[in-house]
């Protein structure tokens, strides 16, 4: 006899020790879910808020920052366009995330459910990636203009040879890049840990297709 057929004989026996009554089940309905979708949802909301604040706060809180922006962008239209673009991106991501979360359904088949979660995670990933690239550009451009507008530093730089100037700028870019890459790795670690099991099971299902 097949091993599993032997198991089948025992399989449907009810184990009295684990049997629950309706009285035990009612309180369960009030408890909060601790599923990965819930955690993913909180993380993406936190990321959305965090990056929106990073983008928006300096503008509202610091007058110096506003003056500097006015200085850099002498053309008001460009500044308005950039602002419009950054808010449009935030709104687009909120819309995509909302749509994606709505499409996650526990009653789909296992593979489709996993794909919906992976898709949602990807949207957050792209949002973070977009912000990291913007942060990188902002830091590099900011430092460049900071140096240019500071007479002491720019005078010193003017006296330095072209090799030294190159080294200084290359170091600025490299340090910024390292900082951004470290942040990126941190994100990957968080998501990697959270979705480790899902990714493993998804790979296993995909493997069955061949």
């Amino acid at each position: 006899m097949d091993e599993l057929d032997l198991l089948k004989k025992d399989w449907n026996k009810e184990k009295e020790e684990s049997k629950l009554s309706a009285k035990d089940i009612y309180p369960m309905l009030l408890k909060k879910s601790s599923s990965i979708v819930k955690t993913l949802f909180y993380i993406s909301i936190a990321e959305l808020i965090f990056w929106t604040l990073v983008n928006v706060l300096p503008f509202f809180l610091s007058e110096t920052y506003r003056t500097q922006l006015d200085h850099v962008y002498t053309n008001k239209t460009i500044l308005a366009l950039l602002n419009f673009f950054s808010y449009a991106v935030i709104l687009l991501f909120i819309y995509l995330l909302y749509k994606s979360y709505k499409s996650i359904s526990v009653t789909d088949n296992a593979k489709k459910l996993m794909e919906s979660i992976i898709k949602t995670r990807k949207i957050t990933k792209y949002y973070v990636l977009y912000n990291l690239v913007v942060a990188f550009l902002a830091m590099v451009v900011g430092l460049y203009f900071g140096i240019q507008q500071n007479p002491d530093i720019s005078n010193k730089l003017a006296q330095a040879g072209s090799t030294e100037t190159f080294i200084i700028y290359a170091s600025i870019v490299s340090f910024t890049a390292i900082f951004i890459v470290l942040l990126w790795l941190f994100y990957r670690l968080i998501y990697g840990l959270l979705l480790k099991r899902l990714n493993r099971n998804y790979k296993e299902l995909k493997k069955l297709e061949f």
Partner: protein
Amino acid sequence: MNKELEHSFVELLEKHQNIVHKVCRLYTNNYDAHNDLFQEITIQLWKAYPKFRGDSKFSTWMYRVGLNTAITLYRKSKRTIKTQDYEGVAFKIKSEDYDDTEEQQLKVLYKAVHQLNDIEKALVFLYLEDKDYREISETLGISEVNARVKMNRIKKKLKTILNP
């Protein structure tokens, strides 16, 4: 959500709870983890219940939600890792274990099934529930042929685990 809906749900779950217990038994290895998973499956079933249209059997619908929660949604709690196995000992199969009484054989078989990966367990679960390959393939999102091939491989794998 209204009381009537809540009442009908609890009544159905109470009646079919064995399905959820069986999923938990397969995917966890201690009492606390079993209860944790049972709780999470109950929440997922309850959340999805308003959309349950009754065009499939409640039990069939439970298979899908239960397995999806166990394979994909459930985040293992810390105590799942820290607490001891049901048996209280690390699991090791010796070949001489497997030719004793039927009870002993069952014990070893359950342990062997526990060694399978999450997807293999899902296939075994549906097989033990007497589901045909069409339903197995629909629940997991794989083709019927692949479900059949995989099931045969699992049977072979179990044989190897049981008779090393």
